[in-house]
């Protein structure tokens, strides 16, 4: 049941977190209904958490036995800068979505991400972002009727104005 690959950077810490997390869940599962009955609401959660804890301990034993990999670094192979930047950008997106609205937040997100990952010119990143946001907005707003936060963009007024234009043409 053991893996033979060498231990990657950060793997030991991650495994210890899994062990502690599983034990915490086991304690929490015990708190649901204890050993009240085999059909009690806490029975499956307890078995599940106990399974997780046993497996996590076995994985920890295996991880401790394996030698660390040579040539790999945490900051390069596990958490390289693009991954960190992306996680930060998604968090920023979630924080800004309500106050700024879908269109400006998506535009900023795409421009920064494309500029950073593809290393293209700023103008190209802006142009691509405008086109992609326009397509996504039209497809998801019209086809999938998904409602996204309008934020600072007066979306209702713009839609009413566009509808008015078409209504005017029809008269």
């Amino acid at each position, binding site marked *: 049941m053991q893996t033979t690959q060498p231990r990657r950077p950060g793997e030991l810490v991650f495994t210890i977190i899994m062990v502690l997390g599983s034990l915490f869940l086991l304690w929490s599962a015990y708190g649901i209904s204890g050993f009240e009955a085999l059909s009690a*609401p806490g029975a499956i959660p307890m078995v599940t*958490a106990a399974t997780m804890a046993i497996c996590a301990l076995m994985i920890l034993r295996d991880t401790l036995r394996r030698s660390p990999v040579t040539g790999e670094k945490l900051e390069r192979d596990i958490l390289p800068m693009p991954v960190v930047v992306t996680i930060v950008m998604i968090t920023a997106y979630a924080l800004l979505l309500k106050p700024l609205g879908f269109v400006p937040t998506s535009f900023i997100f*795409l421009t920064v991400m494309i500029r950073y990952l593809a290393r293209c010119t700023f103008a190209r990143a802006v142009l691509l972002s405008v086109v992609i946001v326009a397509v996504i907005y039209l497809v998801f707003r019209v086809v999938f009727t998904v409602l996204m936060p309008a934020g600072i963009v007066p979306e209702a007024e713009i839609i009413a104005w566009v509808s008015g234009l078409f209504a005017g043409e029809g008269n």
Partner: protein
Amino acid sequence: MDVLQSLLIPIIDLKLLGLIALGTFAGIYVGAIPGLSVTMAVSILISFTFSWEVYPALALMIGIYMGGVYGGSRTAILLNIPGAPAAIATALDGYPLAQKGLAGEAIGIVTVVSFIGGFIGILALALFAPLLADFAIRFQPRDYMLLAVLGILLVGSLSGDSLVKGIFAGALGIGLGSVGMDPLTYTERFTFGTDALRSGVSFVAVMIGMFGISEGLMQLHTVNTAAVKQKIGRIIPSWPLVRKHLPLGLQTSSIGTVIGALPGTGGDIAALIAYDHATRVTRNPEVPFGKGAIEGLVAPETANNAAVGGAFIPMLTLGIPGDAVTAIMIGALFIHGLNPGPMLMVEQPDMFWFIVSALGLANVFMLIFGLTGIKMFVKIVEMPRAMLLPVILLLSIVGAYAVSNSLADVYWMLGFGVFGYFLKLYGYPLGPVILGVILSRLLDDNWRRAIISDQESLWMLLKGTLASPLSLVLFVSVVLIFVSKTPLWGMIFRKKAG
């Protein structure tokens, strides 16, 4: 509603027909572009088709599934990067053919045999699912419980390098599925006293996080890898070539259907077993295996497409998903108010026949789109991932938000995305997590029903299991999976060999 009428629904309704075509077309690209997966696409799509009626939503998802399984072969041949795990075996002989300038021929034969495999899988679904559903009505709660455990164990043992990590992932999924109020007693489970957890963890947020965000983060490691350019020649294969490989294709299609129908196994395993079968039954291949043998393309591609129809058999008749994609499809059916299982065939047979028909149409569209537009396809596959990935991430965020217009779901998605990323990095399979989430309710409900009917006695439950042939087979299978991965198994067989 009779069978024929249900079969005709997606054919006469042009909107549904168009959605199947669109889904298949998109699926081919999704399956082919490294970094995009069918699982990811279907999980994101659930959130967008949430408010749709069930037929259009299913039509689009079935198209993506069918197209995606086939599409994985494209990049396996062109770039030596399987677009999906089901295409790993295809790369072994597909890429050597492309290196010889025969990429077009390889794609052509793969398309035709994928169609044949897909057709056989769908035929098996239409013929055997109603029979299995009749049989499944007699299943006892303990059988469902054992089936759920078997499914999670199989996915856990086959999808990663370590059974322990697979079991850990499956248990994690069951734990996640248990979060919230217990539906029978309204007891809080794993809520830690917070209101946000009382209604449970958003299934869609978990899925998009685990399959969309974590995969996107993994792809960032190789974001600037330059695409390999290939020349495309003749595409449509000659009839003698197809006829020559038809007997092998039929054998491997049957293998694919059976493997796909086993709970917990999917197209990836079917393809590898079929490839192995081909290497054993092909006496004198024109080109050796691994160097561009056509048999090495025929076997995995018939099998993985046949496995699609096969995977729908346990999914629709037992409510047990075959793999991660069918787990997500089950989630979609639940969201649309359907309850996959033997009663689906009794109460809503029209839904079953609609799915059969939609799969058949998706298979035909796969053949049409597969043999056309390959040169344009090559250009799109060569699109830089650095530009594609931000779009995928944006779609994932929008998808998570759209389910219940809640920012909390975006944070859940991000949390599970980062967690899934680390799980992947350290060799934990993610398939069992999602299977566990989906099956936790089935497992919990049936365990409690089984143990209550056996008067809370484990001994009586065991006696009942050993007395019923079906329960016994399932129980022995579960035990065998465990034992086969322990040193004990090795000791027994070494002794025998000795």
